[in-house]
């Protein structure tokens, strides 16, 4: 277990984000999403709601999708966190990002980082989902623009059964 270190009213946060070791002192109440956006300036992870419902803030912790607005940064000390900024390698989009581009899986793009993170987590648990499984697997991610059709198409084009 990672040592819990307080300095005054701050708690020391060490974690790996997108493969890079990061360290900062933050207030105990800091949510993971705010740590990522405000301290690490990884603003690809969005905040879309106040109720843990929209999924715009979805990141991976140890490879699994998590709503980063509903986790304290202190709770995931030592964890391996991936955000949308960590998906492309050497300037090449991740296949899921490329699929969203090809299939026009976004309009305004606000939900997209969360959609991509949730979709890749889904495929890591179920490499060959049916259309219904993709729709259910993305039920925690809301899109106000696209009507989901092309989002589902994007995901199916990477790993689906049709």
């Amino acid at each position, binding site marked *: 277990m990672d040592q819990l270190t307080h300095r005054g009213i701050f708690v020391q946060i060490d974690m790996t984000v997108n493969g890079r070791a990061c360290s900062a002192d933050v207030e*105990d109440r800091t949510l993971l999403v705010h740590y990522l956006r405000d301290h690490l300036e990884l603003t690809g992870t969005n905040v879309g709601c106040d109720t*843990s419902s929209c*999924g715009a803030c979805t990141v991976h912790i140890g490879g699994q999708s998590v709503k980063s607005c509903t986790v304290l940064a202190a709770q995931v000390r030592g964890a391996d966190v991936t955000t949308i900024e960590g998906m492309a390698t050497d300037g090449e989009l991740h296949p899921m990002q490329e699929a969203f581009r090809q299939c026009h899986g976004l309009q305004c793009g606000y939900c997209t980082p969360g959609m991509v993170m949730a979709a890749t987590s889904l495929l890591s648990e179920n490499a060959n989902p049916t259309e219904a499984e993709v729709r259910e697997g993305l039920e925690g991610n809301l899109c106000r623009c696209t009507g989901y059709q092309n989002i589902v198409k994007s995901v199916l084009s990477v790993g689906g059964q049709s």
Partner: protein
Amino acid sequence: MIPAALKYVEADSATAAIAALSEYGDEAKLLAGGHSLIPLMRFRLAVPAVLVDISRLDGLSDITDAGDHIAVGALAKHAEVESSSLLQSEAPLLAHVASKVGDPSVRHRGTLGGSLAHGDPASDLPAAVLALGGSIVVQGPDGERVIDAAEFFTGFLETAISETEIITEVRIPKSGSAGWSFQKFNRRAQDWAIVGVAAVLGASPKVSLINMGLTPLRAGAVESALAGGGSAAEAASVAAEGTSAPSDLNGDAEYRDHLARVLVERALDEASS
């Protein structure tokens, strides 16, 4: 919104958690998956001065065969309950219900113990534990006690656990070949149940109701009707008796009473088919 200022402490064992709860008293709250507590803290509906994080402690999330029952660690996540082959074969209702909670990201964090301790009448897992006749193991400064799920939920978001106790395990009797069903009625994906029903037709049939009162509850009138030899339709017709359904934006109490009767009948039909 951002939670109010708080002090974060971590417990590396159940004993350490109990010690922290005893030290900080009613200022402190346990933090497991955080998927009920953190949303409340963001709205400042919960303002704990101290959070005692148990989400990282080892050894309280195993799912094991304990002879006549399955022992599920309090920190087992919904996703782990959903995918446990042991639960899928010995108490399939629980694994199935876990798969219907929220969405995959919620299920990656939320825990069975947290769901029971929160005791929300609209939540799914308490209904499953009630219908399976489960019990809840809690540990406190005076040792361990085992509470029957039917006695666990005492009021709105209130349970039989005291402020210095922690749930360590949930015991789920094996349901063998008993028929079962789970009916969750909602209008949109990911939503909570407007009304829900869980049923297990074992030696003494058990039926529980979601969102039909101040607590997760057993459908006493339905169970008595079944015990007296009543048909599914007869038993379902009394589903709302003894309940006090809430009225809200999703529907009024009368509508919920109707849903309870319809869903209980569907559940009994499915469980006995």
